[in-house]
C-alpha cells in the first residue's frame, strides 16, 4: 500500500472536507467527523460528474456520518461511499490516516 501525504492535520477541521489532487490525476475528498475520525472518498459526484464532494455539508442521517453533494444534495456515507438515496450507487473510498502532522491517503 502506497500512502501519499495530502495535507497538514490542521487543514481538515472537524465536520468539514477538503479536496486533494493525487499524482495520477484522481481527486480525493478528505473529511473529518466531530470525533476526529478521517474519511477519504472520491471527490467526483457520480450524479453530476463534477469534482465537488469535498465542498458538501458533513453531518449524519440516522446516526450514520454522511456528506451531502453540493450539486443536487444526494447523501453519501463517509465510511462506505454508498449513496443513501440510491443504494446501488457508491463512490470509491480510500484508506486514510494521520501520520505525525500529516494526513496520508492510500489510493
Amino acid at each position, binding site marked *: 500500500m502506497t500512502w501519499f*501525504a*495530502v*495535507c497538514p492535520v490542521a*487543514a*481538515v*477541521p*472537524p*465536520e*468539514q472536507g*477538503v*479536496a*486533494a*489532487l493525487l499524482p495520477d*490525476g484522481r*481527486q480525493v475528498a*478528505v473529511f473529518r*467527523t*466531530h470525533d476526529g475520525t478521517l474519511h477519504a472518498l472520491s471527490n*467526483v459526484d*457520480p*450524479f*453530476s*460528474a*463534477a*469534482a*465537488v464532494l469535498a*465542498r*458538501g*455539508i*458533513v*453531518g*449524519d*442521517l*440516522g*446516526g450514520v*456520518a*454522511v456528506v*451531502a453533494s*453540493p*450539486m*443536487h*444534495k*444526494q*447523501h453519501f456515507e463517509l465510511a462506505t461511499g454508498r449513496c443513501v*438515496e*440510491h443504494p446501488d*450507487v457508491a463512490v470509491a473510498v480510500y484508506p486514510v490516516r494521520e501520520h505525525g502532522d500529516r494526513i496520508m491517503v492510500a489510493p
Partner: protein
Amino acid sequence: MPRKLVVAGNGMVGHRTVQALRDRDQHGEWQVTVFAEEARTAYDRVALTSYVDGWDPAALALPGADFADDDAVSLHLGDPVVAIDRAARMVTAASGRRVRYDALVLATGSAPFVPPVPGHDLPGCFVYRTIDDLDAIRAATAGTGSGRRAALVVGGGLLGLEAAKALRDMGMSPHVVELAPRLMPLQVDDGGGALLARLIAELDVTVHTGVSTQVIEEDRGRLLAKLANGVELDVDLVVFAAGIRPRDQLATAAGLRTGPRGGIVVDEACRTDDPHVYAVGECACVDGVVYGLVAPGYAMAEVVADRLLGGDSVFTAADTSTKLKLLGVDVASFGDAHARTEGALEVVVNDAVAGSYKKLVVSDDAKTLLGGVFVGDATEYALLRSLVDLPGDPLTLIGPRGGGGGVGVAALPDDAQICSCNAVTKGTITAAIVTAECDDVPKLKGCTGAGTVCGSCVPMLRQLLGACGVAQSTALCEHFPQSRASLFEIVRVTGIRTFSELITAHGTGRGCDICKPAVASILASLGTGHVLDGERAGLQDTNDRFLANIQRNGTYSVVPRIPGGEITPAKLMVIAEVARDFDLYTKITGGQRIDLFGARLEQLPQIWARLVAAGFESGHAYGKALRTVKSCVGSTWCRYGVQDSVGLAIELELRYRGLRSPHKLKAAVSGCARECAEARGKDFGVIATERGWNLYVGGNGGTTPRHADLLVSEVDKETLLRTIDRFLMFYIRTADRLQRTSAWLESLEGGLDHLRAVVLDDSLGLCADLDRQMAAHVDAYTDEWADVLADPDKLARFTSFVNAPGLPDPTVEFRAERGQPVPVLLGTPAVMAR
C-alpha cells in the same frame, strides 16, 4: 344537429351552469350562447371586496371564463337579453341579436336594493355588486381633498360590512347604519351582534344600529345624511348595501310565475312553468326560498346541466352556512341559527374578555345539532357545521378549551360536506389524499375543487390530511423537533451563538444539510458576525461557503451588486475588464445586473479583489438574502413617472442588502401605476402614486406566481421604510425554512389582516423589537467579500486542492459558444438522477 341552449346572465352561477354542462356533454349535444350584461367575463363576486387590494380585475377572474378554446360556447359580453318570446322560443338581446333556443337558462342574479330614501340618487351614492360599482366608488374618492374621508354604508348585513371593509381599505372612515337592532341580522343573534358591533367599532368603523337613514342631502360639496334618531353625518359618499332583489323582470314580462317576494318560481329540477325555461342562482325561487349565497346557486347549476343531458338530479334545500372574516373579525353561522325549530335548546358561551361568542342550537333531547353562531372565534365552525349527531355534551364542543372538545374530523361520516361552496364531501377528499396522492392543501384544491371559493374549509382540509397520516410535521429535520420559527426564538432568547451548542442543548445527532444552513441563516439574521466565521463555514451550503453560485461543472458565478440596476459607464468597464481578463461568460440577469460565469474556486478572491477595489460589493446572488430591488426609470426620465423610483430602489437595496432570511427576498419599485418594474411579482413591491407610495407584499414569480397584496397605500417614505422593516423582520422570525414571503403570507393565521395588525397596529407588541433588530442590521452591515479579502484564514479556503493551492481543477474545461466560454460537459455522469 346539436340543440341550442341560451343562457341569460354570466355571473357566478350562469358561468358554472355552462361549465358544468360542457364538462358533461361528451357528445356535443348542446351548442351554447351566453348573453352577459356586464362587459367582462364571469368573475368571483364573492371575492369582490378583495378587488380593492390591487384594483386588478384579473385577480378575480374565474378559470376558463372566456371559453376561448371552446367552439361550442359563444359569449356575448355587454349584450343583455331584453325580451323572451316563449311561443317562438326566441330571445332578443340589446344589440338586436335574436337567438332561437331549445332550452333557456335564466341566471340574471339580483340587483342591489336601494331603499327609497330621499336623495338616494344624488351623485356620490353608490351600490356594491359589480367591479364597475367599485371602480365608480374609487373614482369618486380620488379627487376629494385631503384628510381622512368619511363614507356612509346603508345596511349592516354581510354586504354592508364587506362594503365597510372595502372603504376602510381605501383609506376612508366608514359609518354603518342598520335598521335592525343588530349587525348581520340574518345570520347572527342578539348576543353575537352585540359582540360583533363592539369588535367592529374597535376598527374605526362607526356602527349605528336600530335606526334608519331618513334623508341624504347635498351640503357644501359633500353629503349630509340624517338618521331617524337625530344624528347627522357629514360624508363624502354613500354606499347602499341594504339587501338584494332577484332580477325577475325579464321572466315576468314573458309571463313566467314569480314568488311572493320576487324570484322566478322553479321546481326541484330548477324548471319554470315553461319546460323549456330554467332559472338558477339568485334570480330563482325554489320552494318559496330565494338563496342569496353562491353554494345553492352552484348546486342548481349542476342540477340543470344534468337535466339538460337527460339526468334526473334534484335540488334540495341548501346549506346556508356563512363564514366571513370581516375586518379581521370571524363571523359564522349555520343551520337553524335562531333556534326556530320546535323545542330547540340553545347553548351559549360568551367570553367578553377573549372577545368570542359561541352558540349552538340543539334538539330538545340534546342529541342533534341544529345550528350555531360564532363571533370573534370561529375555530369550531367548519367541523360543527358538517356534524349532525352530537358526539357528547354540546358545552364541551364550544367550551373554553374549545377546539371542538376533542371531536375531530374523524367523527364525521364520509358523506359529510366539508366544502359547502363546491359540495365536496369528506369521502371525496380522503379518496383524493389516499389514491390521488394529494399530500398538501394546494393539491387538494386542484384535485377536488374544495377550498377554492370562500376558503373557510381549508383548516378542515389540513385536518383531513393529518387524519390520513400525511405528515404535517413542523420539525425542521431529524435533528431538531422544533420548527424554524421556534429555533429562531430559542437562538434569540438564549443567546446561543454556535450550532454545536444549539444541537447539544435542543437537538439530537450531528446535523445535516437542512438544519445546518438553516441555523447559519438564523445566526446571520440576528447579526452575530460574518457568515464564514469559525465553525460557521462548515454549516453553509457551497454557495454561501464560497460566496458565489455553484454551476453544473463545479465552477462558480459572480454577481456584483448593482443597486436599482443603475450603473456608471466606468463601473461597466470594470466588469467588462474583469470578465475579459478571467475569461468569464457574461450575461445580463433577469434582476437588472450582470452575472459572470465560469470562475474557479481559486479565482474568486482575485476577481473580487478587482471588483471591490472598483467599489463593487457582494450581490448576494448566492444567499437566502436580499437579491435585487428592481426599478423602472421613474419620474427622472419617464414622461409618466410620478416619483423617483430609481432613487427609492437604491435606498431600499442599500438598506436591506445582506439581510439573511428564510428564503431569498426580491423587491421592486415602479414610478407609476404602469408598473414597469413588476413590483407586484416581488416579495415586497412599491408603486408610486401622486400622493405617496403603495406597498405590496407577498408577491412571487417562479414556480408558483402570486401577485403581491396591498399592505398600505399612499404613505410617505418614512412610514414606508418602517412598514417594510417590520414586515421583513416579522417574516424572518416566523417563516419556515425556504418559505418565500408568498407562501408564508398564505399560511399565516389571519392572513393579511393579521399582518396589518402586527406591523401597523402593533397587536403583538413586537414593533419596537422588530424596529430595533432592523436598525441593528442596517448599522452593522459590511460587505462580505471585502471582509473575506481582509482575512487570510478565510481566503485560504478558496483553493481547488489543499495540496496544490494555485492549481485549477483539471477536469474543468471550456469550449466557445457565440464567442464566449461555456462548460464542456463532464463526460456522462455515472448515474442519471436529480
